C-alpha cells in the first residue's frame, strides 16, 4: 500500500528532512513512526499525503507512483489518504457536522449520503450528540476525535496521523490509539507518528524508528 524507495527530501533551506529511506507497508498494516522531533516523521507523512514531494527516490501509494502524479491529480490522491494532525486543523466557524462533512462535500456527494456517512463517523468516535456544536466549545480530546472522524468519513484506504495525541493526557491518548486499532481491524492501513513510545509499546504493532532522516530501527522490516 505504501512504499518508499531510497527516498530523500531536501528542503529549499538546505535542511535534509529524509535521506535514503526504504519502507514498505502492506495493505491493512498498522505501524508507528517514532523518533525525536526533527528525525523526519512529519516529512515522511507529508510525502505520503503529497504536502511535499520527494527530491530523490520514489514514493508509491495505492499502486501509484507519486512522483508521476500530475498536480491536477493531487486532490484525488488526497481523497484516498485521510490525514490527522496534532493541531486538528478544524474550521472554527463551522459546526462539527460541517467539519466532518467537508471531504464528502468536496467530493461532490449528495446531501442524504453525506448525512448518513457523517452520522456513522460521529458514532464511531463517540460524538453523535455534538454534531451541531462548534469545535471551539469541545475539549482537546473531542476536537481530535472530530479531526479523526473527518479523516475517516470518506473511508480512505490509508490513514495518516501526525502526533495525534501530542496534547492529550495519557487516558485520552489511549482512547485515541484504541480507535486507530479499531480502524485497522476493518482493513484501513495506518501510519501514526508519535514520540509516546510507552503508549504504543503495549499495542504490539510495528514500530519504525527514524533518526536523522533515516530508518534506524524497524520492528517489522520486511517481515
Amino acid at each position, binding site marked *: 500500500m505504501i512504499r518508499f524507495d531510497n527516498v530523500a527530501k531536501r528542503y529549499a533551506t538546505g535542511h535534509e528532512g529524509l535521506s535514503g529511506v526504504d519502507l514498505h507497508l502492506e495493505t491493512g498494516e498498522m505501524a508507528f513512526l517514532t523518533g525525536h522531533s526533527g528525525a523526519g516523521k512529519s516529512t515522511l507523512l507529508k510525502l505520503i*499525503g503529497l*504536502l511535499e514531494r520527494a527530491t530523490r527516490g520514489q514514493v508509491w501509494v495505492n*499502486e501509484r507512483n507519486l512522483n508521476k502524479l500530475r498536480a491536477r491529480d493531487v*486532490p*484525488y490522491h*488526497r481523497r484516498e489518504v485521510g490525514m490527522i494532525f496534532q493541531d486538528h486543523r478544524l474550521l472554527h466557524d463551522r459546526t462539527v457536522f460541517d467539519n466532518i462533512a*467537508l471531504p464528502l462535500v468536496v467530493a461532490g456527494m449528495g446531501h442524504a449520503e453525506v448525512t448518513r456517512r457523517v452520522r456513522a463517523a460521529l458514532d464511531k468516535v463517540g460524538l453523535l450528540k455534538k454534531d451541531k456544536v462548534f469545535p471551539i466549545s469541545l475539549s482537546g480530546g473531542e476536537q481530535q476525535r472530530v479531526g479523526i472522524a473527518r479523516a475517516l468519513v470518506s473511508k480512505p484506504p490509508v490513514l495518516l496521523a501526525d502526533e495525534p495525541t501530542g496534547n492529550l493526557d495519557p487516558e485520552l491518548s489511549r482512547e485515541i490509539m484504541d480507535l486507530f486499532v479499531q480502524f485497522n481491524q476493518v482493513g484501513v492501513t495506518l501510519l501514526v507518528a508519535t514520540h509516546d513510545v510507552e503508549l504504543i509499546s503495549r499495542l504490539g504493532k510495528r514500530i519504525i524508528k527514524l533518526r536523522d532522516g533515516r530508518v534506524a530501527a524497524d520492528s517489522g522490516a520486511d517481515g
Partner: protein
Amino acid sequence: MARRARQPGFRRNRNPVTWLLRHAQMSLASLGRLSRSPVSTLMTAAVIGIALALPSGLHLLVDNVRQLSSSWDGSASISLFLADAVSDEQAATVREQVARRPDVAEAQLISRSAALDEFRRLSGFGQAIELLDHNPLPAVVLVRPAPTVQDADAVGRMAAELQNYREIELAQVDLQWVERLGAITGAIERAVLILAVLLAGAVLLIVGNTVRLEIQNRHSEIEIVKLVGGTDAFIRRPFLYEGLWYGLLGAAIALTLVLTALYLLDGPVERLAGLYQSTFSLDVLDPISLFGMLIGGPALGLAGAWLAVGRHLAQVQPE
C-alpha cells in the same frame, strides 16, 4: 509491487446533473455568505453600480442628443432666395418646378410682399421699412426635402443643384450648427467610451481586491479544503460566484440609478422641448446601455474574481 507504465486512474465525478446541482448550491452559498455581511456587500456593489451607471447614463444622454439632432437634420429646409429681377409669376413657376422634383417634399413660396409683411410684423422695424421706396426683400421658396434625403451631405448636394436654376440667386442650407452638434456628440461619445473602459478596469480592480481580501480571510479554510482533497476548481468556485454576484448586484444598482436619473430628468427635458415646440422626450434605456450594465456587470465581476483567484489561490498550500 509491480511497476506499471500507466498508473491506475482516479475516479472522477462526471455526472452533469450532480455537477449542475453542486454549482447551484455553490452559487446560493456564495450569495448567502454575501448576505451575512450586507453593509460591506452593498458598499462594494454600490461602487460597482456607480462605475457602471456613469458610462451607461452618459451613453444614453449622448444617444438622445444624437437622435434629437438627426431629427433636425431630416427636417432641414433649404431657403431659395430668388433673384431681384424675378417677377411674382416667374416665382410661382420656379416654385412649381422645384416642387415637381422627386427629392422635394414641399415647396412654399413667400412672395416679396408676403416677406415684407412678415418682416414688418416680426422685426419691429416696420416704420423704418416705410421709409424705403422699394421692397428690399427677395422672394423666397422654402424647400422641405423629401424623407429620402436623410443626411446633411445629401441636403447640401441638393442645395448645390438648386443653385443652378437661373432664377435662384442663393440656395442656403442652415445646417452648420447641426453638423457641429453632431461633431460634438461624436467627441463626447468617444470620451464616454474611454470613460467606460477606465471604469470597467476600476470594476475589475474593485472585485479583484474584494475577492483577494476574502481569500486572505479564508486562508485556513482553503488550506483545509485542499488537505481533504478539494480540487482547484472546487476552491475557485465560491470566489467566482462571489464576483458574479457582486457584478449582478452592481448592475442592478446601476440600472436603478440610471432609471432614477431618467425619471428625474424627464420633466425638465419635456419642458425644454416644449419651449422649442418639439415633442421630444427622453428615450428609455437603449439596448447598448442596458446590456452594458446587465451583461457587462456580471462579466466584469467574474473576470475580476478570476484574476484575483488565479493570482492568489496557488499561493495557498497546506503544510
